[in-house]
Structures are given as C-alpha cells and as structure tokens.
C-alpha cells in the first residue's frame, strides 16, 4: 500500500516507517523535525520536511495514498502546561487540516497515534477504552479531542480511523530531545555511569510496551481500518518503576546508582491497559517481553554512544 507517515522521523514513526518498508509498502514521511531528534527517516522512504498544518503541501503528498499514519504531535506533557494553545493548534487543528486534505483527496483511512493520557487519573485498573476520560493536562486533552474529530469525520464524511492509545512505549530509535521518558533516560544514564532519577520511591506502576509491538499494531490497524475504532495499546501488565530499575540492573549485570527524587505532580500512580479489545478485534498481542525489549534498547544506546 501507499502510506503517508506524519511524524515519521520521530521515535515511533521511524520504527513504523522501517516496518512498512520492510513489508514492501511505499512510504512518504512528513516531518518538521521539531521534536524528532533526527532529520532522517528510513532510506527507502520519501522524506519531506514540512508541517501537517500546511494544507497545500499535505494535499500534494496525499495523491494516490491509501492510508495515513498520523503520529506527528507536540508530545512533551510538561511543556503543554506552559503553552497549551500550541498543543491544541498542533495536535488538533493541524490534524483537522490533514483530514480536510484527505477528504478532498478521497483518502479515507487514518491510523492515529493517541495516548493513554486521554484517561487522566484512571478510576479503575486495568483501564478499558470506554472508561471515564478526564485528561489532566492539555496534552491529554488535545489527544482526546482529536479522537472526537475522527469520530465526527467517520460518521459525517466516511473517513475510517483507528485510534491507538499508547501506554509507555520504549525501544530503539528514541531520540526525544529533551529526554523526558524514564527508560531512555535511565539507560543513557546507566551507560554513562550517572545516577538514575526515580520519582515517588518507584511506587508508580506503569505499562511498558516495546516499540516493535506498537508499530505492528499500526500495520494491523491499517489493514482493518473500517469505521471508528479506539484501542489501548500496552502490554496489559503493570510494572513498578522500582522493579523496572531492578530489571535494568539485571540486564546490565551491575548495581546502578539510583537517585530518589520524591514526588512529581500530575502523573498518575497507576496506568495499566486492559488490552482485551485489541486482542479480540485485531488479533494483536504483545510479542516482546520486557527483558528482551530492554536488552535491545540498551544495545541501541550502547551503539549510539
């Protein structure tokens, strides 16, 4: 198939583009390199620098495309508190520009990278897709708002979409800058013999999912994109952050220097996916366990250093 991947130079987009190319698909990547940490994409893909909000450019790129993987986003949660409007502009309004161009071009499939941030403080664990959603920061609100847009575009204009609510994605290729995610931060710190910063005494329980599993979900999502669908994408299992650092010590085979940093507001204690819906509807399940995933991730950063 012919696909457009927005945000294809970013962490997940880069991995997705690689998978799509490996599977023989024809890929165009659109990225403005604002937060990707790299200015490249898989060499087999056509790479275009630009914004999803640039209607003419997007309209042009959509020619003959069958599906759009929409990953481009302003993604760092804590900055969304400093400049909320920017997040709503980039993550919602630019998405609407993209959808309008798709509508004019007759491209009627979108796989959207949403976020577990849509739920806010979960009212139960594990979280199901229809549970209460009360986002606790502008980032989560923007990601959820765009799901509403997609719902409307399906019912009003027949553009089908699959929304994937990612939990904590980790793996090779994460060059987020500045680094806010725990796993890449810890691994890079460990490789440099610097201390690992741990919040909440490591008592937070999160759901870690390897990036290869996430991009495989995207591929399956595209092949079964019909209607308006929303899925959690996680491992379905929680891990205590303190156990995660223990696991890293195990994989590294050495004692790591942990720096306890106390509490951090605006970060739910427990965030674990119920993945029964995606298993049942799409036949997807996580294939890479945490140990294998971490080993591959460490390998990646070791080579980078």
């Amino acid at each position, binding site marked *: 198939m012919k696909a457009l991947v927005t945000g294809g130079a970013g962490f997940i987009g880069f991995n997705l583009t690689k998978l799509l190319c490996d599977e023989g698909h024809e890929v165009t990547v659109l990225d403005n390199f604002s937060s990707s940490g790299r200015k490249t994409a898989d060499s087999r893909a056509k790479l275009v620098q630009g914004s999803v909000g640039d209607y003419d450019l997007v309209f042009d790129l959509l020619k003959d495309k069958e599906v759009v993987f929409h990953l481009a986003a302003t993604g760092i949660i804590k900055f969304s*508190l400093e400049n*909320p*409007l920017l997040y*709503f*502009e980039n993550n*919602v*309004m630019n998405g*609407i*520009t993209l*959808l*309008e161009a798709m509508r004019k071009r007759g491209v009627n499939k979108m796989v959207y990278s949403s976020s577990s941030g*849509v739920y*806010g403080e979960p009212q139960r664990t594990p979280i199901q897709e*229809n549970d*209460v*959603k*009360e*986002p*606790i*920061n*502008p980032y*989560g*609100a*923007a990601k*959820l*708002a*765009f799901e*509403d*847009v997609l*719902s*409307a*575009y399906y*019912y*009003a*204009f027949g553009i089908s979409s699959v929304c994937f609510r990612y939990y904590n994605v980790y793996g090779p290729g994460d060059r987020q800058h500045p680094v806010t995610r725990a796993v890449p931060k810890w691994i890079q710190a460990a490789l440099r013999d610097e201390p690992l910063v741990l919040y909440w005494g490591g008592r937070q329980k999160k759901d870690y999912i390897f990036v290869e599993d996430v991009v495989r979900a995207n591929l399956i999502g595209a092949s079964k994109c019909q209607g*308006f669908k929303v899925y959690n994408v996680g491992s379905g299992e929680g891990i205590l952050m303190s156990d995660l650092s223990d696991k890293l010590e195990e994989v590294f085979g050495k004692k790591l220097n942990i720096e306890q940093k106390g509490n951090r507001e*605006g970060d739910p204690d427990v965030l674990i996916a119920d993945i029964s819906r995606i298993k049942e509807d799409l036949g997807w399940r996580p294939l890479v366990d945490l140990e294998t995933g971490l080993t591959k991730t460490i390998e990646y950063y070791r080579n980078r250093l």
Partner: protein
Amino acid sequence: MKALVTGGAGFIGSNLSQLLCDEGHQVVVLDDLSSGHRQLVDQRAELVEGAIEDSKLLSEILPGIEVVFHLAATSTITYSLTNPRKYFENNFINGVILLEAMKKADVGKIVYSSSASSYGNSDERPLKENDLTEPINPYGASKYSFEHVLSSYHRCFGINSVSLRYFNVYGPNDEQKNNTRAVPKWVRAALQNKPLTLYWKGEQKRDYIFVRDIVLANLMAALNCNGFDVYNVGNGRGVWMKDIVKKLEEIVGRELTIEDAGERPGDPKFAMADISKIKEKLGWHPTIDLETGLKITVDYFKTRITENL
C-alpha cells in the same frame, strides 16, 4: 456576582443575561453579533461587541469578573458539515483563547454550554453522562472536545468548570437566522398558516427543555462551580415529534398542515437525557412542562410576527 456572558445576544445567552440581571447580578455580554441580536440583550447588561478570540479585549473586560458563562458558538449542525474547520476554530480553539485570558486575569470559574451532540447515536435508553461519546458531526465533536480542555484546565490551572450538555432547548428569543430548530420553525409556520416540515413522519423521540429551565441550570451551576463537572440538562422525558405537532394544534386551536419531508440521514431516532445526576448534585429539575413552555413560545412569536408585519 459579576459575570461575563459570551454569546449573550443569542437565544439562550439573552435569556440567561435577563435572569442574571433579575437576580441582581452585574452582567457583561460579549457577542460578535454574528448570530446574536443587539435588541435581545437586556438593557441592564453591558454589551461589548467583539470576539472571544480577541485576547486584548478579553484582558480589558475580564478583570473583576467572577464567573464566565461561555455560550458563544457556531451552532448549526448542518453547516458544520460544509465547513468543519470553522466550527473547531470557533467552538474549540477560541475557547482555549478565552481560558488563557481567564488564567491571566485570574478568573476561576466557567459554566460551559455543551451539547447532547457529544454522545452521537443513541437508542431508546436515556443517556447518562458517562455513556459512550462518539460525536457524529463536527459540531458535536467541537462542543465535546472543549470539555476535555476544561478537564485539563481544572487539573493544571485550577479553573473550575461545569459543562452543561443541553438537549433540545426551545422558548422565547430563539431568533436564529435560517432557523434549523423544529419548534421555532413550526411555531412561526403555524402562526403564518404555512405548512410544518416534518421529518421521519414525526417518529423521532426527543428531549425538549424550556429555555427558562436551562438558564436556571446555568445559575445553579455557577453557584456550585468547584471542580470539573458535566451534567445533562434536559427534561428527562422524551416526546415524539408528532406529538409536539398535536400539542401545537391544541394551542393554536386548529389543524396544521404537515409537509412530509421524508427521512433525514444522520438524524438519530432517539435522543433523551437521564437527568438524575444534575438533580442529585445541583438540586436542579425542570419546572416548566411542555404545554406551558409551548404556550409561552407561541405567545412570543405571535408578538414578534405582529411587530414585523
């Protein structure tokens, strides 16, 4: 209290401003008059003609305001299908601009006029606030998505909000141009001896709520605005569209001509509110029954038509 009413020259906003003035509150109305009417604004309120995305204007009128009633919106569902982007700009992004201005001016309360269109398709069962929300048109999506913004502004910036999801509101002051709402259209048609356009042969069940009850809900929400809350505002009981026609016939005292407009795609058969939450939490309940409400509405349009003629 000192209140800002955005969209205060519109149907619901003008009724709200009037109630607030009646209750002795100080009211500033902000309206760009794109769909509102200057003459609907209560004399006791201060009318500022302008847009909610005008940050500079907001920075001038917000200081000292205790609560914002946010009703300004582009609201005709049909047109949201021809120009979706405009709906998200007006109903979503411009709301964010308003919130940013509130943050700067330290205004900590907003009562938001949301919509039953947040839910999307439904069946005969009355809708609860936590039911599935899948908007089926850009209007519904733009209204619902702003609730998420409010959720995040409560948690991050301490701005409290109450979102009121209106079902079918009717009553005096509904002067929408090219009116798309059934009741004002029918009342006008009936009074002018024109045929009433009826879709689906009237086999649709809706939840009609009189505007006076809606503005009362706004007032109570403002007094209980301390968190992030969402409530349905409706009658809680459905009425068949064909039965509204019958009620109108009783009120005007003669048989009305019906024009069968066939089926209208994307128009759900049922849309009814479960109002137990707002009853329990705010102590609000509808006070005006359909017959009384329709009579008042008919009287209003009777006067309006006489004025125009």
